[in-house]
C-alpha cells in the first residue's frame, strides 16, 4: 500500500509543481520571454558603455560629433529600457506561474538578492533619466564632467544588476558541490550560492558580449538611417556612425572568445560530463553552426572595411593587399568550419573508414581551429590597421623602421600561432590546451604593441585628403545588417548552449525537470525558436528606432565645421 500513497503524493506534488501554457507550451513561452528580455537587456547594458566612451571622446577629444552620437543613443536607450523592464516582468510572471515549485526554490535561496536587484534597478532608472534629461543642461565645463560621471554611475548600476541576475542562472548550471537534492534551500547561504563556479566567467563574458551587441545594433541603426537619408550631409553622419558601431563591435568581438574559453574551462572543471555534453555530446554540431556564424561575422566585418576603403583617398595604395587578407580569411573559415565528425552516408563512411576523414579530419581538431581563428583575428586587425592608415602619410623620421617592426611583429605572432598549432598535434591533450594560451598571448601582444607603435607613428601625419563620409555603396550597409542579425542570432544560439547543457535539470543534479518538456530539443527546433525570438526582438527594435525618429527628426545638425580626419 505504501507505494500507492507515494504515487498519490507524487501526483499531488507535480500538480502544484507545474502549470502548462496554452498552445505553445511552457518551455517555448519561457524561452521566448527569457530570450527577448535578455536581448533587450544586452542592448540596454551595452549601449551605456558605448555612450559613455563616446561622450568621453567628445569631451577629451573635443569632437562634438561623438557627443551627439552618445546623446542619440541614450534617447533610444530610454525606450529600450522600458521594453527591457516589460519583458523582464513577462519573464518573471511566466516563470512564477508556470514553474511555481522551482520558483519557490529559487526565491528561498535568492530572495534577498532579488530585493537588492529591484532597488538597484530603481536607482538605475533614475540615473538614466538624469543622464538623458540633463544632457543639454550640464553641457559646459565642470558640469559636463559631472554629467559624464552620471554615465559611469549608470554603467555601475547596470553591471551590478547583471551580476545579480547572473548569479541565479549560474547557480542553476553549476550549484556548489556540497548542495544535494536533499539540501533545504533555506539553509543555503546566499553568498555561497552566488559564488559558484561559472558566476564570474559569465559576468565577464556577458559584459564584453553586451558591448559587441550594442555596437552591432548601433551599426544597424546607422545603416538604416543611412539608407533612408535624404541629404549628403545626413548620409555622411550616419555612415560615420555605422563605422564607429562596427569598429566597437568587432574590436570587442576579438576578446570575446577568451572570456568564452574561460567559461568553457570552468564548466569542464565543474563537471566533465557537462563539458563533454557541450563540446562533444549531442551539442557538438552546435559549434559547427557557431563556427559558420563567426566566419560570417569576420567576413562581413572585413568586407565592410574594404568597401569603406573606396571612400578614403590614399587607400588605393593598400588595395592590392586586401585580396591576400581575403585569401587568409577564406582559408581560415574553411579550416574553422571543418567538422571533425563528418555527416556522411554509408558509402562515404566506408571510403573514409569511419566518420573521421583521414586527411581533413586533422583540420577538425582543436589545434587547427585555434590556429585558424587566431590567424583570422590577426588578418582582421591588419585590415583595421590598413584602413586607419589609408589616408595619412607618416612624417615621423622613423616611420619606415616602425612599419618594419610592425610587420615583424605580425610575422612573429603568425609564426607563434602556426608553430604551436602544428606542435599541438604531437603532444598530449593537457599540454595542447596550454598551447592555446600561448597562441592567444602572441596575438594579443601583437595587437597591443602594433597599435601603440601605430599611434606614435601617426603623430602629426599628413592627410592625403578627407575621408568622403557618405560615399558608400548601399551593399556595405546591408553587410552591417547581416552583422547585427548574426550577432543577435549567435547570442540566442549560445544562450541555448549554455542553458541546454543542464539537460533535464532545473538545477544541475539538484532539482530535476519533470515536465513533458524536460528533454533538451534538437538543434533544428532550437534554431526555429531562436529565429522567432530574433525576429520579435528586431521588429520591436525597429519600432523603437522608428519612434526615435518620430520624436525628434534626428540629432544630426548640418555641421559648419571643417570636415574631420576622423577614425
Amino acid at each position: 500500500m505504501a507505494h500507492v500513497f507515494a504515487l498519490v503524493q507524487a501526483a499531488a506534488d507535480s500538480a502544484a509543481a507545474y502549470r502548462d501554457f496554452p498552445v505553445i507550451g511552457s518551455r517555448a513561452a519561457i524561452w521566448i520571454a527569457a530570450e527577448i528580455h535578455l536581448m533587450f537587456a544586452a542592448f540596454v547594458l551595452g549601449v551605456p558603455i558605448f555612450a559613455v566612451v563616446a561622450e568621453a571622446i567628445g569631451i577629451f577629444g573635443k569632437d562634438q560629433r561623438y557627443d551627439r552620437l552618445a546623446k542619440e543613443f541614450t534617447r533610444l536607450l530610454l525606450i529600450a529600457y522600458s521594453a527591457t523592464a516589460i519583458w523582464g516582468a513577462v519573464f518573471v510572471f511566466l516563470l512564477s506561474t508556470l514553474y511555481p515549485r522551482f520558483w519557490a526554490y529559487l526565491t528561498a535561496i535568492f530572495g534577498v538578492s532579488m530585493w537588492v536587484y529591484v532597488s538597484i534597478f530603481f536607482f538605475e532608472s533614475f540615473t538614466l533619466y538624469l543622464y538623458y534629461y540633463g544632457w543639454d543642461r550640464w553641457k559646459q565645463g565642470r558640469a559636463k564632467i559631472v554629467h559624464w560621471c552620471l554615465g559611469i554611475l549608470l554603467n555601475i548600476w547596470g553591471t551590478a544588476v547583471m551580476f545579480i541576475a547572473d548569479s541565479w542562472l549560474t547557480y542553476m548550471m553549476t550549484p556548489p558541490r556540497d548542495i544535494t537534492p536533499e539540501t533545504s534551500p533555506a539553509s543555503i547561504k546566499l553568498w555561497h550560492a552566488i559564488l559558484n563556479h561559472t558566476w564570474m566567467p559569465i559576468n565577464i563574458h556577458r559584459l564584453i558580449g553586451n558591448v559587441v551587441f550594442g555596437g552591432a545594433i548601433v551599426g544597424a541603426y546607422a545603416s538604416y538611417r543611412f539608407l533612408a537619408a535624404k541629404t549628403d550631409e545626413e548620409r555622411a553622419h550616419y555612415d560615420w556612425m555605422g563605422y564607429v558601431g562596427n569598429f566597437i563591435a568587432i574590436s570587442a568581438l576579438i576578446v570575446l572568445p577568451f572570456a568564452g574559453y574561460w567559461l568553457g574551462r570552468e564548466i569542464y572543471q565543474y563537471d566533465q560530463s557537462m563539458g563533454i555534453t557541450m563540446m562533444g555530446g549531442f551539442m557538438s554540431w552546435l559549434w559547427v553552426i557557431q563556427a559558420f556564424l563567426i566566419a560570417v561575422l569576420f567576413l562581413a566585418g572585413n568586407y565592410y572595411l574594404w568597401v569603406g576603403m573606396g571612400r578614403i583617398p590614399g587607400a588605393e595604395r593598400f588595395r592590392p593587399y586586401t585580396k591576400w587578407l581575403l585569401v587568409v580569411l577564406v582559408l581560415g573559415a574553411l579550416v574553422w568550419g571543418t567538422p571533425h565528425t563528418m555527416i556522411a552516408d554509408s558509402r562515404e563512411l566506408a571510403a573514409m573508414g569511419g566518420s573521421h576523414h583521414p586527411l581533413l579530419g586533422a583540420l577538425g581538431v582543436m589545434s587547427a581551429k585555434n590556429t585558424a581563428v587566431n590567424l583570422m583575428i590577426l588578418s582582421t586587425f591588419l585590415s583595421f590597421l590598413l584602413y586607419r592608415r589609408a589616408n595619412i602619410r607618416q612624417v615621423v623620421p622613423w616611420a619606415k623602421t616602425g612599419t618594419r617592426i610592425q610587420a615583424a611583429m605580425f610575422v612573429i605572432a603568425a609564426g607563434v600561432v602556426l608553430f604551436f598549432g602544428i606542435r599541438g598535434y604531437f603532444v598530449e591533450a593537457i599540454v595542447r590546451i596550454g598551447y592555446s594560451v600561448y597562441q592567444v598571448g602572441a596575438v594579443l601582444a601583437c595587437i597591443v604593441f602594433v597599435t601603440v607603435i601605430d599611434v606614435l607613428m601617426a603623430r602629426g601625419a599628413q592627410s592625403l585628403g578627407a575621408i568622403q563620409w557618405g560615399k558608400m555603396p548601399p551593399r556595405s550597409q546591408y553587410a552591417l545588417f547581416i552583422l547585427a542579425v548574426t550577432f543577435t542570432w549567435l547570442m540566442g544560439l549560445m544562450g541555448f548552449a549554455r542553458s541546454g547543457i543542464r539537460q533535464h535539470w532545473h538545477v544541475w543534479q539538484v532539482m530535476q525537470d519533470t515536465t513533458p518538456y524536460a528533454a533538451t530539443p534538437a538543434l533544428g527546433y532550437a534554431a526555429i525558436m531562436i529565429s522567432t525570438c530574433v525576429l520579435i526582438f528586431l521588429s520591436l527594435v525597429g519600432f523603437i528606432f522608428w519612434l526615435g525618429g518620430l520624436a525628434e527628426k534626428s540629432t544630426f545638425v548640418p555641421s559648419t565645421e571643417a570636415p574631420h580626419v576622423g577614425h
Partner: protein
Amino acid sequence: MRAYLRHPFWQAVGLFVLAYLVIVFVIPMLPGSAMVPSSVVLQYMATVLVGILIWVSDDEARWTTFKEPLHEVLIQPRLKLVRNGLLAAVTLVVGCLTYSQVKASVAAPPNLRSIHPAPPSQITFRGKTITLVGLENPLRKQGELAPHVAEGRRIYYQNCVPCHGDHLDGQGHFASGFNPLPANFQDNGTIAQLTESFVFWRIAKGGPGLPREGTPWNSAMPAWEDFLTEDEIWSVVLFLYDQTGWKPRTWEVTAK
C-alpha cells in the same frame, strides 16, 4: 581569350570551378586521403562562393565590370539564344536538384553519431558504484606495469581481436559487417583524446550503455562488465595505450 582571363566575372567563375576540382578530385588523390563527403563539399563550396563574391564586390570598379556580362545576357537582343539557354538550364538544374532531394533512395540516411558521448559521472559496475570523474587507472599504481600489460594483451586477443583487429586499428575480421565500424585505436581521434576512465566506461557498458546521442545505429560492442572483471578491463585499457603508444588524457590538476 586574354580579355576573358582579365575579366573579373570569368576570373570568379574560373576560381569557383578550380576550387570545386581541388576539393572533389585533388584532395582525394593526396596520399592517405579519401573522398570528401558531399556535406563537406557543399560547405566548402559555399564558403568559397562567399569569398569570391566578397572579392568581386569590395571594389566599386571591379563590381561594375563583374556585373556587365550578367547585365548583357539579361537585356542584349543579340544574346537571346544564350539568355534562353541559361533560363532553361537554371530551370533544369532546379528541377534535377528537387528530384534528387525527393526521390526515394535505398541508401541509409547520413547519420550523425557522437563518437565520444558524454560519460556519466558515475556508473554501477556489477553492483559496485564507480565514480568516473577524476578516476585514474588503479593498475598504474600497483607495482610493475609489464605483467598487467601482458594480462591485457591476453584478454584483448581473447575477446577484442575479432572486431578491433590485430593492429588495434578496427580492422578485425568482423569489422566490415558493423555500422558503426569498430573503433580504431591507432587513430589520433579515439583513445588518444580520452581519459582512461572514459575508455573503461565504454568497455564496461558497451553499445547498450551508450547514451542517446550515440545512436541511431547502435554500436555492437558488448557490455563487457558481464564477461570481464574490473581489473581485467583496466589491464586491457593499459594494454591499448601501451601498444598504440598514445598517452591517455589526464585530468586537470586543480589548484586546491
